[in-house]
């Protein structure tokens, strides 16, 4: 949170004093509209006296001038230096916190050149939860202790990325307790969510043997990692594009394991989604991990084998 405070205006800093101890997930700031703080499922507003309130009608926000000052602080008044990131609508700051923007998209040849007149800012607080994958990590290895191809399934905001990060850490560091030896792990972090890199350097703990390719398209990144870093495990988030299929085949043919994730509630949901059919047809996944928010983000519902048989499950 310290890094977040550095980019806030003095007024916002004052309002958010003490919030560090609370499980704050997002700060949503919209120009001339009430500011809201997201704590898990709860949305809290700030009233005119600077106090927290659930009443949105009493919520106050940032006026034009302060909103602009906030934007300048976030970008260090160097919009041009963040141009590539801003095309995607977000930047990652020190500490791995992500800041999303919306405003007026400026197009060139049908593609976004940049976003101007920003009117909404969403600050997502990065919180790493170490150890969340330790319970099921030992089920993701074969008899030789090597990782097997694994697909993590969950609806949005259920902890897929947190799990992938922790798995990368466990396998890159190795764990005598879990019987997992440390191996070189390659991470293709297309949206800077797994390692939350800032200027190419991971801000979150992804393990000592992890090499991160930040901001790179998954398919290209997997091939680059294969050729350049000789990993034994590749970790990447949210597969689903056509070109990912070919890259996965190449990774599998190279004898390198892959841990990845997809948006789906469970196996049935996954099979119903047409874009995942090519991935299922490949038959390369030997484990499926089903997550939910039932007991908070990152609740592991089940670990299934290649045939969909439950290896471990809650029920």
């Amino acid at each position, binding site marked *: 949170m310290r890094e977040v405070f550095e980019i806030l205006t003095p007024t916002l800093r004052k309002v958010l004093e003490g919030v560090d101890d609370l499980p704050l997930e997002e700060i949503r700031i919209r120009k001339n509209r009430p500011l809201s703080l997201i704590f898990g499922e709860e949305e809290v507003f700030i009233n005119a006296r600077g106090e927290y309130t659930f009443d949105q009608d009493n919520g106050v926000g940032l006026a034009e001038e302060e909103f602009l*000052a906030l934007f*300048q602080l976030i970008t260090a*008044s160097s919009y041009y230096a963040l141009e590539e990131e801003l095309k995607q609508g977000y930047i990652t700051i020190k500490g791995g916190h992500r800041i999303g923007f919306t405003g007026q998209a400026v197009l060139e040849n049908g593609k976004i050149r940049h976003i101007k007149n920003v009117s909404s800012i969403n600050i997502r607080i990065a919180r790493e939860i170490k150890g969340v994958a330790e319970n099921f990590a030992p089920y993701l290895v074969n008899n030789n202790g090597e990782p097997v191809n694994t697909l993590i399934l969950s609806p949005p905001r259920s902890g897929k990325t947190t799990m992938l990060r922790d798995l990368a850490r466990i396998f890159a560091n190795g764990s005598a307790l879990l019987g997992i030896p440390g191996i070189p792990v390659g991470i293709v972090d297309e949206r800077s969510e797994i390692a939350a890199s800032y200027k190419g350097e991971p801000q979150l703990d992804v393990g000592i043997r992890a090499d991160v390719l930040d901001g790179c398209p998954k398919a290209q990144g997997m091939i680059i990692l294969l050729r350049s870093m000789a990993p034994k495990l590749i970790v990447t988030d949210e597969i689903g594009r056509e070109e990912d299929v070919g890259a996965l085949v190449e990774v599998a043919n190279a004898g390198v394991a892959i841990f990845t994730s997809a948006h789906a509630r469970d196996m049935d949901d996954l099979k119903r989604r047409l874009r995942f059919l090519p991935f299922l047809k490949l038959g390369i996944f030997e484990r499926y991990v089903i997550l939910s928010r039932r007991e908070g983000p990152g609740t592991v519902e089940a670990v299934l084998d290649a045939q969909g048989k439950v290896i471990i499950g809650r029920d």
Partner: protein
Amino acid sequence: MYLKLLGACLTVAGTGALGFYLGNRYLQRVRDLERLINLLNFLKSEIRYKATPLPEIFAKMANSEEGTVARLFEIKDKTLPVNQGLKKALVEGFFQTALLKREQEILLAFAEKIGMSDLREQENLLNYTCEQLKLVLAESRQEAEKNVKLVNYLGVLVGAFLVLLFF
């Protein structure tokens, strides 16, 4: 008699020095404008080729060898967004340079928008600012050429006139 002579000499020396000082201000303004344009060209290169963030560029500019004009870019108040910090630095440091209000207005308008848009618009802003300053530079050179000798001579002549009048 000697006292009168001393007084006359001091009068001529004083007004002459004032003339030289005023003449030098014209030349100093030309030098400051040249340095300012150099600094803005440096800024342009840092933005275009290295995408260096503004706080880093301004720190480099402030520590450069471009005299008092360089100090205009020394942002002391780090709590403000860089633009506002620059505006404050420009207002506070301006009297130490030989630049005039017209140049200050150009720089303040520049500070309002620097860092606020994409690379292409930033380049446009810098080109526009540099063009404006080059026009001012050309005028200031003409003014210097026209006025420096005049003011220098005038200083001495006013002194001589005062001596004739009062001594």
